[in-house]
């Protein structure tokens, strides 16, 4: 029986590849955009302007506090009532990018706040501009704090991208659900789905670890 199931599974590989491709495309685009926007929001949020900071804060709270499924429904099904018609892929990208940006914003804010004030003072005292202070002094040190949760977030987002199947995109998880109807071995099918995600996520985790070590070495790593 297992043999027959495997055979049947093997036949589904074009579908699986399509799903994997969709997952990779969706997450890649929205992670890149989300990171850029998220860093921007994080920097703006710590920038000292009360109004900007609280508007961003409220938005981030709203997005972090509600299920992604609902967000994607609002973008895909409700926005048209306001005259904004989007195809499923664009809606998925917008929803995922927004989600990524909001989570990354919080991570960046926490990282920036962790840099000792003496560092900012030193940068102030040598007349670095606000942006130079960020770029040269604060962000590089904040990255130590930011990197691990950032990668955690990337990986979570790659997995969150599966929610887009609710608006009709066939991603890797959806492929799993489709295949499991013909090959009723959920354990096997979802093991393979898991493997697919692993192939995408693991290199990312490894990359982060390498970067972390490089940063850590320069700082003189803590020996506990």
């Amino acid at each position, binding site marked *: 029986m297992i043999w027959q199931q495997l055979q049947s599974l093997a036949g589904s590989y074009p579908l699986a590849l399509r799903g994997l491709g969709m997952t990779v495309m969706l997450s890649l685009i929205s992670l890149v955009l989300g990171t850029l926007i998220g860093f921007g929001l994080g920097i703006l949020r710590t920038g000292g302007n009360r109004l900007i900071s609280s508007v961003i804060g409220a938005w981030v709270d709203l997005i972090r506090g509600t299920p992604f499924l609902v967000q994607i429904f609002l973008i895909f099904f409700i926005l048209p*009532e306001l005259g904004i018609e989007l195809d499923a892929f664009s809606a998925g990208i917008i929803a995922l990018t927004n989600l990524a940006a909001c989570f990354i914003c919080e991570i960046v804010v926490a990282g920036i706040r*962790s840099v000792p*004030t003496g560092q900012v003072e030193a940068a102030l005292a040598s007349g670095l501009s606000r942006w130079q202070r960020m770029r040269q002094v604060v962000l590089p040190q904040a990255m130590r704090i930011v*990197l*691990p949760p950032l990668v955690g977030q990337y990986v979570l987002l790659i997995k969150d991208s599966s929610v887009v199947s609710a608006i009709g995109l066939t991603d890797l998880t959806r492929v799993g659900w489709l295949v499991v109807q013909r090959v009723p071995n959920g354990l096997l099918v979802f093991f393979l789905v*898991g493997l697919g995600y692993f192939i995408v996520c693991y290199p990312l985790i490894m990359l982060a670890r390498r970067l972390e070590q490089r940063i850590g070495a320069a700082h003189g790593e*803590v020996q506990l």
Partner: protein
Amino acid sequence: MLENFSFRTIVEYLPLFGQGLVTTVWLSLLSFAGALAVGILLSAMNLQRGWLFRVPAKAYIDAVRATPLLAQLYFLYFGLPRLGIILPELVVGILALSLNSGAYVAEIIRAGILSIPRGQVEAGVASGMTYVQRMRLVILPQAFKVTIPPLLGQAIVLVKDSALLSLIAVAELTRAGQLLASDRFMPAEGFITIAAFYLLLYYGLKGLAALSGRWLGQAGART
């Protein structure tokens, strides 16, 4: 969908949402407690110098982070019975969430600990504190402050992930909304109500995080 939005139906379903909310809350609380325990254990293993503990901890953390909760849930729910272990749905659910979130928590804690300046560790060492004392008195209190925001983030992720448990027949908040959507074909009412409840939980968690931050943080911010 919005023009015929029916608050009346939502009110009719409120008891169901209430039950779901209660389940989500206690389920998430237990799971997060579990995740903290798993995370602390894993990060302690991961920070050891010898490979004996570090390597398995790292492998576990990577494997869990790199695969979706859905697959893990499947593995626990349908895989364990093949090994002769049949657990009730709720137990499997809490177990899955704890084990999953624990891996993320472990990374968060590790990052927090590594952010403590080396001098702090040395000061503890020099006054003859044991490893545990150093951790408890010097490092963790400082690390916790850096750690609270990402832990809050993880808690939120966990609360929302708990919706996946409806897959294995656990009746939580999301399911209440789905019922409204499928019995009455009122998806907008169902899902927007869920969102409102989750937002409520989110602000609750945020308040807790702020409280614990103040409690742990006190005034010693700079240097």
